């Protein structure tokens, strides 16, 4: 298959698998097999594509908005470039892990509507592929909306009143920002540049003055609600009512990363790093990101609910990536891109662990975890590794991306930001490390000694979380290939 066909296949495969999942709704085993097989196939396809990325294969499917006198037609089209490919690789790789994990989790929890769950999951992955490979802003916007809509049923999965309320917040913020902000920004870009294609070096250079660029960037940054920049972050903690696999893949990887990926991609291919760096139009974004980063970490400290604490941690980590883009130096942008991978791997592990704790020990609060490490050693070992990676300590992958980001602040001479990064890392330690420490070193409370179900979660849950934890370590050693892979995006 030609690379062009592979891209289309990568987008369609999850969607086809979603249809198959619905078709097999009577037979759960077959249904889960479909999910796993498509996960494997998808990873293979995306893997094959990495080989041909230098050629930048691109394909247009259909013209959606016909061109007029001064504006080009806009098509639904895909292309493969390093940043998107990396994102696709992460999402497809972790989809397999999550699928295995969800099978264990959903069955041992006896959840309702499992077919709807797996179907929507597959559609969401398809949307992520679409976002990763989008050739222009319209295509990206399309799949961005598909992702929002397909994850809504996952968020409200329990159907309880709380879940529905959370679902409304989720949909309201994500849809609202995307329509009012993102769509408007896209249209404005179209008016200014006459095209929406992602081009190396950007398309806006020469069409805008710094002030307009700043405003446009603001529309993009706040229009992308999925990036959870404060004050538009509320949907993320709300979405934690979802089953843990959903929180793990979608709210640690797919959805939020789709947000920051959009911002990165807009920064690199629409504005161009030169334009951002030169005009200083992104300076304000640095401070918003820095503020988000710090305050989210502080809020995370105060949360006792494990998943909620992780959610605030995610908000803070996303801000790192936005910060990387807004610094607009080569190393910071690459650092931002790399942080997508590193954080994805770390955070998904943390969520897996949270889910495993829920399944194995029925605990949701940090304060309930005392002494649990002895009963669930694998889970908490994985948790420790992932936490270290998120904090950014060697020998975990997370240290490289943070290093590059710090380098970026130094290059720009933004010393206060460097300080912010350092403080935030300390805060990371403060809110993440107590969890394994409590689990391993505190005595378990004596009252519920005899409570049943205190052991490891099912194997289907434990194996994926060990694998992703191992991934965090492996990434430490793979950082250079990723760096090389990404470094081509910043040049024209």
């Amino acid at each position, binding site marked *: 298959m030609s690379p062009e066909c592979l891209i289309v296949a990568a987008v369609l495969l999850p969607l086809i698998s979603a249809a198959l999942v619905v078709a097999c709704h009577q037979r759960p085993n077959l249904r889960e097999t479909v999910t796993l097989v498509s996960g494997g196939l998808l990873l293979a396809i995306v893997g094959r594509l990495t080989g041909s990325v230098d050629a930048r294969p691109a394909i247009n499917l259909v013209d*959606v908005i*016909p061109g007029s006198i001064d504006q080009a037609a806009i098509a639904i089209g895909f292309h493969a470039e390093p940043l998107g490919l990396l994102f696709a690789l992460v999402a497809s790789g972790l989809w397999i892990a999550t699928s295995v994990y969800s099978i264990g989790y959903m069955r041992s929890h006896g959840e309702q509507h499992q077919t709807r769950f797996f179907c929507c999951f597959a559609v969401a992955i398809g949307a992520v592929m679409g976002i990763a490979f989008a050739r222009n802003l319209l295509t990206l916007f399309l799949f961005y909306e598909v992702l929002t809509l397909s994850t809504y049923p996952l968020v409200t999965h329990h159907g309880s009143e709380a879940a529905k309320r959370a679902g409304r917040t989720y*949909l309201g913020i994500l849809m609202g920002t995307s329509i*009012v902000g993102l769509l*408007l920004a896209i249209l404005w870009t179209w008016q200014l540049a006459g095209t929406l294609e992602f081009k190396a070096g950007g398309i806006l250079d020469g069409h805008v003055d710094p002030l307009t660029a700043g405003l446009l960037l603001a529309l993009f940054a706040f229009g992308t609600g999925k990036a959870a920049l404060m004050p538009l972050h509320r949907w993320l903690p709300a979405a934690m009512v979802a089953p843990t696999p959903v929180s793990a893949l979608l709210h640690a990887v797919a959805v939020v990363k789709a947000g920051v990926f959009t911002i990165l991609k807009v920064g690199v291919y629409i504005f161009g790093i030169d334009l951002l760096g030169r005009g200083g139009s992104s300076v304000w974004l640095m401070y918003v990101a820095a503020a988000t980063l710090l305050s989210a970490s502080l809020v995370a400290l105060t949360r006792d609910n494990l998943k909620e604490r992780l959610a605030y941690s995610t908000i803070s980590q996303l801000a790192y990536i936005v910060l990387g883009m807004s610094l607009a130096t080569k190393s910071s942008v690459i650092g931002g891109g790399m942080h997508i991978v590193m954080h994805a791997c770390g955070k998904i592990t943390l969520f897996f662990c949270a889910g495993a704790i829920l399944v194995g020990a029925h605990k949701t609060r940090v304060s309930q975890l005392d002494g649990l490490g002895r009963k669930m050693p694998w889970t908490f070992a994985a948790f420790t590794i992932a936490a270290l990676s998120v904090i950014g300590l060697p020998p975990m992958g997370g240290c490289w991306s943070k290093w590059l980001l710090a380098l970026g602040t130094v290059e720009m001479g933004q010393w206060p930001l460097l300080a912010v990064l350092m403080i935030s890392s300390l805060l990371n330690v403060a809110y993440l490390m107590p969890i394994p420490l409590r689990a391993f070193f505190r005595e378990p409370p004596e009252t519920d000694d005899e409570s049943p179900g205190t052991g490891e979660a099912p194997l289907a849950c434990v194996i994926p979380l060990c694998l992703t934890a191992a991934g965090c370590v492996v990434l430490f050693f793979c950082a250079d290939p990723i760096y090389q892979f990404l470094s081509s995006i910043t040049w024209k």
Partner: protein
Amino acid sequence: MNLEQLPILQVILPLLAAPCCLLLRRSRLAWGFAVLVSCSSLLIAATQLHIIHHSASGSISYEIGGWAAPWGIEYRLDRLGGLVLLVLTAIAAVTLSVARRLLQEEVPEERHHLFFATFLLCLAGLSGIVSTGDLFNVFVFLEIASLSSYVLISMGRSRRALVAAFQYLVMGTIGSTFILIGIGLAYMMTGTLNMADLAQRLTMTLDSVYAEGASIENPALPVNQTRTILAAFAFLTVGLALKLALFPLHAWLPNAYATAPTVVSTFLAGTSTKVAYYVLLRVTFTIFGLAFTFGQVGLQFLLTPLAIMAILVASTIAIYQGDIRRILAYSSVAQIGYLVLGLSFATQAGLTAGIVHLFNHALMKSGLFLVVGCIATRQAGLTLESIRGLGRRMPLTMAAFVVGGLGLIGVPLTSGFISKWLLVSAALESGRWLVAVLVVTGSLLAVVYVWRVVEAAYFLEPDDKTTSEPHDAPAGLLAAAWVLLGATLVFGIYTDLPVGVAREAAASLMGVGS
């Protein structure tokens, strides 16, 4: 067949078919005949649009009875008219083909033939309005269309339909009387009723329209700067705004659409306001002209705020409705706001957006009302409470609703997105920032009212768990709904037909190009 006779055939066919329908008496026969007629109309409309689109002049003209314009009545169709006719006849054909099934619950069988006759008359009236190039003839056909729609609406199952029809009758008659006054005043100052002739004479000076030796104060004044013409324009516009249900003259519409038989809501939602919009375009652009409407009168300063109010207020009201049909009806009022907004920009891009939205919204809203009809075949209640869990009971039906709803919101790949895209980019192009923001805010409100239905159907459990077995609407009905809503998907992806034709039509309305 002689293709030159098509324009008249378009109107005469349903007009003469109506009495035939009456004679057939048997419900099934009359229905079959009506379907046949509407399908032929569709065919004629498609052929006409094809001819127009490929003709050099971009329009066809037909002199009725061979009496030359401006003495006789002329039929004149350009791309815009062709497009509107196509939508009109397509919706009529689809609606009629399922009408019998839908009517079973709502109108006793022995009155079906009367119903179909009225339906065809309505179709004839609407086609006549679009085709004619004579202002008074517009009034006559407007009355045919209006009278038949009053009757059709009054056929609704509940007695509220009667009141709604009466209110509509009063409002509609006021509207058409205003239009009649406007026509009269315009005729008074020009001496003609033919639209093209009228447009030309309006720009002449007073001394050339008066006879020699008349005592006029200001002989060099162009006719269109007289107060009389100004009043004519005002009355025409207000009358049309009533027919169009432009905010704040929309009061009749929600009641009418929500109580009429679903066949009727389906048909009227997609056609009658669209045709009124068409006439508004004709009046503002073809007859009075750009310079008069937007330069001298400054209609945009009135229409833009009204359109935005329509979008925001009607969408907000839609959010608080408990009945699906009322939600859709208020949404229609909002969508009319989008149409008028496109017009009020007075730019080619804005006009294109308006025309494209006319096309798209007609398909969407008819499709959605048809879905409501589908639901009504299976259960009596159409409130948000009673459709709880319907996503599982009628999966295909509700899926169609979701498609239409996404179109109303303007999600990409639906045709609703294309029209909003064009509208917002037209606003940006002319530097109307605030308008652009308000338009997207309107979409946001659409998210809310559409989502309330979707949430009820998919994510709320029914109060009484009577049956959870899938039990979709009858296949024919479902197919018709999917044809219309599928078309919104197709035209959301392959946009050449509506956008291409609309661009050319807008160009000719603006006086650019041909």
